[in-house]
């Protein structure tokens, strides 16, 4: 058996974990592009992976993992400077992480994944829930339309009771990382992956995005640099909005589906979706 390595994908429902896995499997099995990591032999879980990748190739929504079908896939890889190794990645349901936040407990199986993880990929969709303050909302309303301000301010709205579901995205992600730190006794390497990167790539680098849109998470990662080593990637695994028929058609008409993939770290952009994994497993 080759050297084992274990990655943990964490993120809320719809944050792009399974889509990343589908695109990764396409790249590894296609073998036509230059990537940091290559497949040495087929995975035993290829039936499951092929099923996910079929949807990805057809530009269909990759089915979300549900709580009943957590699946661990093992990829047999090598790469320059890495040697041959077996990489285990549990494809965990985002719903499980959501439940950790509301139920405040973690399954023993998840805990085991946390203990054994060589590195963590933290996925987030750029459409973040922000917890906007009323004063800010009112000011924005006023800026957008002075005439509508009075109407909006006096509109009859139903008051909502607070619940943990209302937590802003950045608070949820900080809490998930705090759970990891609570359970682990070792330093953690985290690759933050901003998925659907094509939606926001005009806003700067992935690092800039996290700093501006999720400042609490940004501070948390930076101020715990003795406990967490991190970097930020922007990953566009679908290549565009597949719910938009026109965009979907354009993506399907590409000669090479690899062109759909875009991976950005700082100023560097490539189509190598293995880069975040190579970063997590690399020797510092």
């Amino acid at each position, binding site marked *: 058996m080759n050297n084992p390595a274990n990655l943990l994908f964490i993120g809320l429902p719809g944050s792009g974990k399974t889509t990343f896995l589908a695109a990764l499997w396409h790249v590894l099995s296609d073998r036509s592009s230059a990537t940091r990591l290559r497949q040495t032999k087929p995975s035993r879980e290829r039936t499951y992976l092929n099923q996910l990748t079929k949807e990805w190739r057809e530009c269909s929504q990759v089915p979300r993992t549900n709580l009943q079908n957590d699946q661990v896939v093992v990829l047999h890889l090598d790469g320059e400077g890495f040697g041959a190794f077996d990489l285990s990645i549990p494809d965990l349901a985002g719903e499980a992480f959501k439940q*950790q936040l509301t139920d*405040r*407990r*973690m*399954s*023993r199986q998840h*805990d085991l994944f946390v203990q054994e993880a060589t590195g963590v990929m933290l996925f987030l969709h750029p459409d973040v829930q922000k*917890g*906007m*303050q*009323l*004063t*800010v*909302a*009112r*000011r924005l309303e006023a800026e957008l339309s002075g005439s509508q301000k009075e109407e909006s*301010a*006096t*509109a009859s*709205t*139903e*008051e*909502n009771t*607070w619940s*943990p579901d*209302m*937590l*802003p995205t*950045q*608070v949820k992600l*900080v*809490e998930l990382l*705090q*759970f990891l730190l*609570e*359970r682990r*006794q070792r330093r953690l390497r985290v690759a933050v992956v901003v998925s659907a990167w094509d939606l926001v790539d005009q806003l700067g680098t992935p690092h800039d995005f996290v700093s501006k849109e999720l*400042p*609490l998470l940004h*501070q*948390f990662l*930076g*101020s*715990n*640099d*003795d*406990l967490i080593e991190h970097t930020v990637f922007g990953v566009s695994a679908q290549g565009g909005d597949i719910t938009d028929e026109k965009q979907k058609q354009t993506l399907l008409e590409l000669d090479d589906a690899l062109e759909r993939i875009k991976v950005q770290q700082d100023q560097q952009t490539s189509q190598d979706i293995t880069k975040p994994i190579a970063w997590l497993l690399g020797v510092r």
Partner: protein
Amino acid sequence: MTDAAAGSANEEGTKPVAEAEPAFIDLFSGAVLGATDAEVITLRSRTHLVVFAGAEGSGKTTVLAAIYERLNQGPFAGFRFAGSRSLLGFEEICHLNRLASGGVQPDTQRTRLTEETKYYHLTLRGEEPSAARRDILLSAMSGELFRMAKDSKEDAERLTFLRRADTIVVLVDGERLANTLQRTSAQADAADILESLLDANMVGPNCQVDLVFSKLDRITAAGKPAEEFLSKTQEKFDKRFRARIPHLAFRRIAARPAPSLGQEDSDGGLAEAFASWTTIVSPATQDEHQGVPAPSCDEREFSKFGWRYFERTRRHS
């Protein structure tokens, strides 16, 4: 099971059933902390305790919520956010000031009258890379609870946690101070709170006490007479308490300025205030707790529990 019963079971050849390992591991609750959880934090590291005291509606919870909201937007008062054991607690007190609440006007949930004092936790780190982590516990005393303590020395002594406070912030309600009908009561309420604390020996020799005039925007909006009354109040408090409180300071803040005054972007003096509240006062030559009654047997037991818990859970970094 009694020994007799256990003996009987063994005689019948039944083996004790191993307790099944639970399928789930409990995580920390994230809610506002009770005394036990707060104690665990104080045993893990040197923790700075800031207590907000004031009459009902003086703005204690608003100040707590505003500190957290500012950290949500980026580094604040020279600190970066490095963690919290009470994120859900913070989020809950911010709810009525959020769009998701469905409310129209910003509001703050009142501090609940509970038997146990509650704590909000922050781990912060200075903005310079070499800065060390700081654990901060913030506690707002329910207005009603304090009213009880104000009226009775016995009730004040029940609030033993105050003896550990590094900073006590007594809030003087600026809105009431700006109202000629209520201003004398507002002044008296704050003075009474401080008197109660001093009478009960709650203010340690190294404890920093800040008398904070809250809702400064209301004072400013009320004009010169209100500002003059505020200044006179400050002079009066200074004369009355300076000799008895070595580390006494005065401050004016607007933690959540009224939108109509166009000061939404104003810091309202909160960053400077927070930096001051979390500054460690140089220890006096005498022991920090000298002059303060020793903890009761119950408290010592409580601390031992906290220490044992810490020993079990501390990290091996």
